[in-house]
């Protein structure tokens, strides 16, 4: 139908715009009135935090790019110039550097929240898949960003990771040369990584938009994993969750600020303050901490191609997770059998990360292998089988009346103290 949008905006200017381009109405609908389950716990803050983090990364990145020189002869020195001479350059760079770590911390928690509460299950499969796409884009962006300062870890990280592609038979070598734009990691590589590092975040913004659209179609999951039955189960997003997210944001910023101002290099590696030297490999090459579990999976297999496939597989398996988990119950709160396996999985991920940081020898190879085995078992065997054999606890009738039916067992799960019916 043609004609002006029927606006409910009171401010005449906003109303004038809204009638022609109903963005204010849309925002009001999606971010103010949007009915949201009333029983979120603080783990539901992390989506908003990730979004803020993305904005922080883009803004600091744009300002860093104003001073950075993507050339092998100048990259290292230009970063030092940012640290020493550019006004507040050290601040902006340390925010960007630690922001990458914060981004992964936030997103990992966000993912584990999804795993625990079954947020990937129907009808939210596509929402989950878009999330995995964001994770992949983030990893690519972070990897290329780490190359830009052109320190030793930058150079050797780039060399090792791009060499992964040489594992593929026949085309492997050509792919690697194509990635490098030469016969080793060199200036053409640095240039394209800078270009792509600047581009990918905006792709992430695009996919995040789709992620949010998909979220607003299905509505949010919640700690009970049951759909809201009516208005008594939901509250408007604003002010309830806007203020809760703001509080969470403050806490997140405190952690972030502590890293930036008091231990800015703690999560980094000392070797990256040595300028890249193509003739000398550092004694221990380790990726940034957020890649360590995947790095451990890579090294768990003695076969080159096998390791590479497993590493990519460890992410790709997440794409099909919605169809692997056969249990109709979302929240682990009602899955007594699955819960210990989930916690085991979480611990294994940490252990894999630790093993990834250790030299690939002795006990750590075994640890990586056991961890890798469990990682894939969890998705490919445990979750599919559990769904068939597990007897879940009775689900509550609705979000606002979780204690009315089968109340006993839920009381044990103290995360969300059930609200008494007045």
């Amino acid at each position, binding site marked *: 139908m043609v004609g002006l949008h029927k606006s409910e905006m009171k401010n005449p200017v906003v109303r004038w715009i809204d009638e022609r381009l109903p963005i204010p109405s849309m925002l009001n609908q999606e971010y103010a009135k949007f009915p949201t389950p009333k029983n979120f*716990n*603080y*783990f539901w803050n992390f989506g908003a935090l990730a979004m803020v983090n993305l904005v922080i990364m883009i803004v600091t990145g744009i300002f860093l790019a104003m001073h950075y020189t993507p050339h092998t002869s100048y990259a290292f020195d230009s970063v030092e110039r940012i640290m020493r001479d550019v006004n507040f350059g050290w601040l902006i760079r340390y925010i960007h550097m630690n922001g990458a770590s914060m981004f992964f911390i936030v997103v990992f928690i966000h993912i584990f929240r999804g795993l625990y509460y079954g947020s990937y299950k129907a009808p939210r499969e596509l929402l989950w898949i878009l999330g995995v796409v964001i994770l992949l884009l983030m990893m690519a962006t972070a990897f290329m960003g780490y190359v830009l300062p052109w320190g030793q870890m930058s150079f050797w990280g780039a060399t090792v990771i791009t060499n992964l592609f040489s594992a593929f038979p026949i085309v492997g070598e050509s792919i690697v040369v194509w990635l490098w734009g030469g016969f080793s990691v060199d200036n053409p590589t640095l240039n394209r990584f800078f270009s792509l590092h600047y581009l990918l975040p905006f792709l992430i913004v695009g996919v995040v938009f789709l992620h949010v659209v998909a979220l607003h179609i299905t509505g949010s999951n919640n700690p009970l994993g049951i759909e809201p039955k009516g208005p008594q189960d939901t509250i408007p997003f604003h002010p309830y969750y806007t203020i809760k997210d703001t*509080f969470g944001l403050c806490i997140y910023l405190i952690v972030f600020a502590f890293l930036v101002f008091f231990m800015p290099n703690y999560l980094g590696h*000392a070797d990256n303050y040595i300028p890249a030297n193509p003739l000398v490999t550092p004694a221990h090459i380790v990726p940034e901490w957020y890649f360590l579990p995947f790095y451990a999976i890579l090294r768990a297999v003695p076969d080159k191609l096998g390791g590479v496939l497993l590493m990519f597989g460890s992410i790709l398996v997440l794409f099909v997770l919605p169809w692997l988990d056969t249990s109709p119950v979302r929240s682990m709160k009602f899955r007594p059998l699955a819960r210990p396996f989930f916690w085991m999985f979480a*611990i294994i991920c940490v252990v894999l990360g*630790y093993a990834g*940081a250790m030299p690939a020898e002795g006990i750590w190879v075994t640890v990586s292998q056991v961890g890798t085995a469990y990682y894939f078992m969890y998705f490919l065997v445990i979750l599919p089988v559990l769904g068939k054999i597990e007897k879940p606890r009775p689900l509550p009738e609705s979000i606002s009346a979780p204690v009315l039916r089968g109340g006993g067992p839920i009381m044990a799960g103290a*995360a969300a103290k059930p609200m008494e019916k*007045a």
Partner: protein
Amino acid sequence: MMRILRTTALAAALALGLPIAAHAAGEVPKPPAQNWSFGGLFGTFDRASAQRGFQVYKEVCAACHAMKQISYRNLADIGLSDAEIRAIAADVQVKDGPNDDGDMFERPGRPSDRFRSPFANEKAARAVNNGAYPVDLSLIIKARGGGADYLYALLTGYRDEPPEGVPAMDGMHWNDYFPGHWIAMGRPLNDDQVTFADGTPATTSQMARDLTTFMAWAAEPELEERRAMGVRVILFLIILAGMTYGVKRKIWADLKH
């Protein structure tokens, strides 16, 4: 609650636990922790020590080691006056040019010049140093896992003879803390090698301590500003978090059904 605590602990482990890993090659002992003026969360650089450290660098290290990220003007940070900086800079000859005839020429340094490098390039440096490359020291504290403690341990960790049973190595020197122990650089600091203007006795450990302080400043000249700003930012955020929590409580108090 327990579940949340557990998960938080997990997140913390993810965030903090992992990267402690994987420095340390082989059997080198961990450098003993020293008490530094710039240590802890709120330390600041001991200016007098950093100035003495600069003197040690200038008179000892600078013969082989460059510090090309540092300019003479930066010395104002550790308390040198403009006149002192100009004099220090003017003492060295800096390559400049080309002039109108197209030739490179030497001129006295200016505060805006970088510290003069002892060698034109890495190959020249290796040629004079038995193939070893004296590394640039601008970032040495950040570029070594052990940081300041490691540098101090290295400077004071030389032995004239390797431990018993270890055959000597030609042209190499035994150091307790250098990875692999055999280091190309000979013992750099000896007692009374320099004379400090402020009368501080120039013992090896004193010079090592001062030099390390200077290097720590050179690696992180923003450290003091950063920490001071951090205190203000975090206090602000804590107050803001408290107030936001108050607002949140009030808003959510409406929900009672």
